[in-house]
């Protein structure tokens, strides 16, 4: 269910993020991030570390800024003219908003999977091979074949598609298409994978397969997932961050957030009490 964020922050005495925003040996660090769309401020002074090999879930009502924050992490917001991002966002100590930085390799390092599966109108093979080809990650066909196979295996799709690699990716089921998009993201060996409601267009079985995949991918990647499903956040993540009206209200271990949250806004949201 979509909830509108109508509860006023001021009435609840918001005085900074509750919980530990830091992570040991973080993969990404964000400090004092502010995002404006024209005059409207969508993210207000958010600081949060993304830990190595962790799944962190960003939750909150519609319009709370969680997707905007996610899109800051690989500069996807650059594609929106009126969007202005300030503050500090680093990937392995590298400032990703450095003017000299090329966003194309950044987006390979920080890959993204969207709400609706969006395979290229190409074959299954080419969907995976596209990234390694443009980034020059392989030198010959054998290597490329290997990357395609490994990526599809990691995405749990290999056995379902190995006999029809040259058929269009768009001919797969919704769940298979989403796993194809995940395979496409991991084919370029990213460090971080951003997932923006990756299961919202999928049935429960396809959702379960993606969740299982997320758990497996954690061994090799760091995952930031935006989800509207609290149960999904509880199932797949180790840390959860709750956003409300552009503020990061609370962050903590997932097991604590869903059983004994500290902030009333978090409690009200996860128990379905926003009026």
């Amino acid at each position, binding site marked *: *269910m979509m*909830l509108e964020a109508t509860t006023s922050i001021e009435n609840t005495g918001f005085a900074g993020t509750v919980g530990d925003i830091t992570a040991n040996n973080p993969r990404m660090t964000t400090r004092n991030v502010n995002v404006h769309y024209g005059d409207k401020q969508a993210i207000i002074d958010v600081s949060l570390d993304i830990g190595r090999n962790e799944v962190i879930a960003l939750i909150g009502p519609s319009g709370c800024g969680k997707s905007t924050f996610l899109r800051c992490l690989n500069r996807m917001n650059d594609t929106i003219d009126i969007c202005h991002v300030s503050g500090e966002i680093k990937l392995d100590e590298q400032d990703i908003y450095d003017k000299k930085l090329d966003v194309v390799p950044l987006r390979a390092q920080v890959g993204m999977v969207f709400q609706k599966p969006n395979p290229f109108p190409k074959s299954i093979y080419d969907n995976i091979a596209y990234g390694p080809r443009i980034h020059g990650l392989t030198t010959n066909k054998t290597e490329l074949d290997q990357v395609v196979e490994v990526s599809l295996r990691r995405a749990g799709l290999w056995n379902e598609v190995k006999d029809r690699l040259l058929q269009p990716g768009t001919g797969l089921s919704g769940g298979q298409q989403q796993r194809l998009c995940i395979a496409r993201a991991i084919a370029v060996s990213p460090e971080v994978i951003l997932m923006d409601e990756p299961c919202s267009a999928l049935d429960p079985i396809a959702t379960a397969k993606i969740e299982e995949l997320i758990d497996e991918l954690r061994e090799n990647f760091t995952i930031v997932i935006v989800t509207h499903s*609290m*149960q999904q956040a*509880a199932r797949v993540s180790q840390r959860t961050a709750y956003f409300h009206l552009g503020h990061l209200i609370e962050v903590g271990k997932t097991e604590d957030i*869903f*059983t*004994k*949250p500290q902030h009333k806004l*978090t*409690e*009200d949201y*996860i*128990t*379905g*009490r*926003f*009026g």
Partner: protein
Amino acid sequence: MNEMTEGHIVSGYNDELNHLHQTVLQMRDLVRLQLKNALKSLQDEDVAAARAVIKHDQKINALDIQADDAIIQLIAKRQPMAKDLREILTVGKIVSDLERMGDQARWVARLTIRFYEGESLPPQQQLLTDISKMGSYVDTMVDATITAFDQLNLQRAIEVIHKDQALESEFKSALRRLSTYLLEDARNVGHIADVVLALRALERIGGHAKNIAGHVLFLIHGKDMRHASLEMISAELGITSDR
């Protein structure tokens, strides 16, 4: 009804949680009534009333099962989180404790039947004094512990834990007194054994009330302190442990 059971966008969820909450209060009322009637049957030497107590325990058992069914439905339908989850888990444990309290009240009723049914010689009244005294004390514990749950009242929950310590001392004193009666006249041994069983049942009711107080602390604070000492609880919650 309290803040735990209100305020959801889905009003059906409020209704279901409220209904579950009311079931606990209803069980509390029944347990207290059963205890009162069992003690009264002993005082009045009324075997028929004692039999009624034993029969009516089924009502408490039925509510226990009804609450468990409602909990299963709530978990499956609503996937409760945070304080809702704690409320539901807590109620599951509370109803279990209340059901066992009902079973213990039956022990007191059985005593009435053993003593006053048939032609055998009834016990001396002095042997029964502690039952009446401990029974009244335990009744206040049952009331206080469910009030703590109903009102999310931390202080009352702590009071119940204190009271359980006092009850334990009272139980030991009663056993000492009964030993002296036994030394005075060994023919009391049969009656005394039965009285000890009834006192033990009352002491168990107090123990269940204390368990419930522990569940209430978890409900309010999200920390399981069932096995912590009073000092540890007071330090953790930052409250004074004076009665």
